[in-house]
């Protein structure tokens, strides 16, 4: 049981636009933290710059709202220097994947024990509406009045490409689903990327229309859970099966497909091939995968740093400055 309530993590009055997905995400994060029960003073929330990066200001934990793109690097130093802290790193799609793309991939590659929140609204909101690295090709915005001529990043693909060991996805307005992935991210020992699909009501309203409410998610999303059948639909009438090198949606009971043919989700599988296929699914032919898509144990950087400190300390004969000096060639002037 946790010693803390939601109130212990709340601070101030959020200033996001009414209807912004960040509001609901913030509430879910605070609820998740209260359920997890790590003390507010042992928690650090570190963000970059952007609408969503204002989030630490509304937390009663330790926090930093830093500079554009560097949140993952700053969080890395924070966690490595003080591994007793639980560190949540919060970035938007511009902060995390454009200007901060390098830090995002390297935090994943190193497997720093961070909970990395990526609030993806596929738009630059704070600068008032330019396309982001997750905006679809052809996207019309203030800086692309005739449509973009570039393909977007898919966060999961980037995470997996960087050898990420945890990837989960939730919709900001889906409190239950969000809290579930945040808790899983906390429990995962290592870099844990949570892509939060979040609607910008002002500059990109409707980006996630098909899955932004419960009804839509029933039709157009699939909740994946480790060890459970990959079924979806209002009455779980659809399932995912493997076909050739890809996945296929089937209706159970039709065309000779039974529940036995449907894949069982394995988030713990080291090989990420099928997990990536799940993460890359999109409408209208496929449901969008929500929940913990990949969750594989691997050595973390911060653990390894401290293990090495201990290992070297046990081997070397010097442990402080005075002893270090003595390891040199020394002569005496009498």
């Amino acid at each position, binding site marked *: 049981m946790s010693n803390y309530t939601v109130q212990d993590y709340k601070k101030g009055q959020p200033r996001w636009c009414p209807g912004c997905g960040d509001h609901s995400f913030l509430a879910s994060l605070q609820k998740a933290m209260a359920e997890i029960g790590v003390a507010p*003073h042992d928690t650090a929330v570190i963000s970059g710059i952007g609408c969503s990066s204002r989030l630490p200001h509304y937390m009663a934990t*330790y926090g930093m709202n830093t500079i554009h793109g560097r949140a993952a*690097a700053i969080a890395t*130093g924070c966690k490595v220097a003080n591994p007793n802290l639980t560190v949540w790193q919060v970035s938007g799609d511009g902060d995390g994947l454009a200007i901060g793309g390098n830090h995002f991939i390297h935090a994943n590659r190193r497997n720093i024990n961070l909970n990395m929140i990526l609030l993806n609204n596929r738009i630059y909101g704070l600068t008032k509406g330019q396309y982001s690295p997750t905006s679809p090709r052809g996207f019309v915005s203030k800086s692309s009045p005739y449509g973009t001529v570039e393909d977007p990043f898919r966060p999961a693909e980037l995470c997996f490409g960087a050898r990420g060991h945890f990837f989960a996805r939730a919709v900001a307005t889906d409190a239950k689903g969000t809290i579930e992935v945040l808790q899983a991210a906390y429990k995962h020992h290592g870099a844990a990327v949570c892509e939060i699909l979040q609607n910008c009501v002002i500059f990109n309203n409707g980006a996630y229309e098909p899955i932004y409410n419960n009804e839509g998610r029933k039709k157009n999303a699939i909740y994946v859970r480790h060890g459970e059948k990959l079924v979806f639909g209002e009455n779980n009438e659809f399932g995912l099966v493997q076909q050739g090198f890809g996945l296929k949606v089937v209706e159970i009971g039709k065309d000779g497909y039974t529940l036995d043919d449907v894949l069982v989700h394995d988030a713990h599988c080291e090989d990420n091939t099928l997990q990536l296929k799940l993460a890359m699914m999109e409408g209208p032919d496929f449901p969008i995968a929500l929940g913990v898509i990949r969750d594989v144990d691997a050595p973390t950087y911060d653990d390894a740093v401290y293990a090495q400190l201990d290992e070297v300390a046990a*081997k070397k004969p010097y*442990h402080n400055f005075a002893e*270090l000096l003595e390891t*040199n*060639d020394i002569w005496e002037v009498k």
Partner: protein
Amino acid sequence: MAEKLEVKELSQVVVRFSGDSGDGMQLAGNIFSTVSATVGNGISTFPDYPADIRAPQGSLTGVSGFQVHIGEGKVYTPGDKCDVLVAMNAAALKTQYKYAKPQATIIIDTDSFGPNDLAKAQFKTDDYLGEMGIDPDRVVACPVTSIVKETLKDSGLDAKSVLKCRNMFALGLVCWLFNRDENLVDNYLREKFAKKPAIAENNIKVVRAGYDYGANTHASVPATYRIESKTKEKGRYMDITGNKATAYGLIAAAEKAGLRLYLGSYPITPATDILHELSKHKSCGVITVQCEDELAGCASAIGASFAGALAVTSTSGPGICLKSEAMNLAVILELPLVVIDVQRGGPATGLPTKSEQTDLLQALFGRNGESPMPVIAALSPVDCFDAAYQASKIALEHMTPVVLLTDAFIANGSAAFKLPDLNAMTAINPPYVPESLKGSWTPYMRDEKTGSRYWAVPGREGFQHILGGLEKDNKTGAISTDPENHHLMVGLRQAKVDKIQVPDIEIEGDNDADLLIVGFGSTYGHLHAAMDELRADGKKVALAQFKFINPLPANTAQVLSKYKKVVVAEQNLGQFAAFLRMKVNGFTPYQFNQVKGQPFVVAELVKAFNDILDK
């Protein structure tokens, strides 16, 4: 048998070892300087190496030099020109002869002066000495390679390993020339290769061969030399480079402050040795993170600082460009951070392995907004220790990023370092928020005396707070765009830096000097040597060498206005002079500026200062 040679007493001597990058000239030079220091000589060394890892063998661009200056008393610089030049091949002779004094002894390996070698070194004929105008009487022409091969013929070493020992032959010959006790070299090698005794013994054999060659042939020189030792300050010493001294200063400061040392860095010449050195000392609890880029090096250090470590990032000028944004973040967060800039030739990639003082204004002003930052410039390889310690102390006690400027010259150069006693060093007391403020504390409450905000490290219950790159309300710590508040905060951040107490500038030389020489940082040795020469010549000259640049010592204006003529000498186009003009009303100095990527030449300084005296 050799007849007795004349032994000349010298007060100082400069030896330059040169050869291909892979010839081990640095090791030979280092051993020679260490052995000299062991017998009590003053030492100063200067490696001069090419930017290429390994240029084609025997080519002009692949030559690497290592200069050692030893003297009976204190030695301030690695010396302008050398008394002995070791040239292991034709290219080395071609490129390095310009660093030799007119009467210098030249030692060459004649086996490396064949037709191919001469062609690669762009000699036109086989009379290479004639082409360079070198008097053959000054040349010790020795078939080093052949003798080394003969010496090691039964060693079982392969041909490549045998050739790697040529540097030891040169070392032996130089040791003979300067009457160094060969046993000292033997001991050094046995200790260095304690785990590989076979290597030690092979090297010793070659050193002896070089020594014996000198003794048996007199190496065609009229005399050997002895450099006596004047009593130095008593104590225990080691040889140290500036980069190593910087690393040691940081380790000492972290221990004194009771904090973990965290370095976030990215490899860059000539600063990488700080990363190398600190990475070795995990048994002292040092954490080094080699980051994905310069930005992350600085950013991760800020994260570590927030988490309660003594956080450091190390780089050179191009890295400072990339770190500037994060350095600025540290200014507004008011978190301790030490930023080390081992300056090199610029702009852009510039001269990666060469030395300049061209990043001063970048360190002082190279950020957006009003962004005051203390700046310290180390004076010498040994002073890097104290400068790093002081930078850490100021950062931690005043909750501010601090820039420590060193440069390629002092970072790679070495000198004798008296082992410091950490117990005797000044305490470092960061302004941790007192427990009594729990409940009433906000992040930008300040200590009245220093103007510094308090440090609340995550993990402490009841002091949770948010810091950030956005301007904050002076009282509540919340984001604020209020005009009056911003004006106030800009002033408070500036005042905090201005209030830092630094030692007064001390004048060396003549109190009633006709000329005050002003410099900063690493030019101390050369400016001091120039002053000494001028004074020996009867001129009245003084030197003010600045280590603390921002804030300047309180007596700066008073000192600068005391002398009729002042010259600011620096390795840039006048950055420190410009800063002093900005800070000291009516200050109009003479300037001596040189940006060659090489240390000053004392003789040139003396000439320039004499010209100013004559004006």
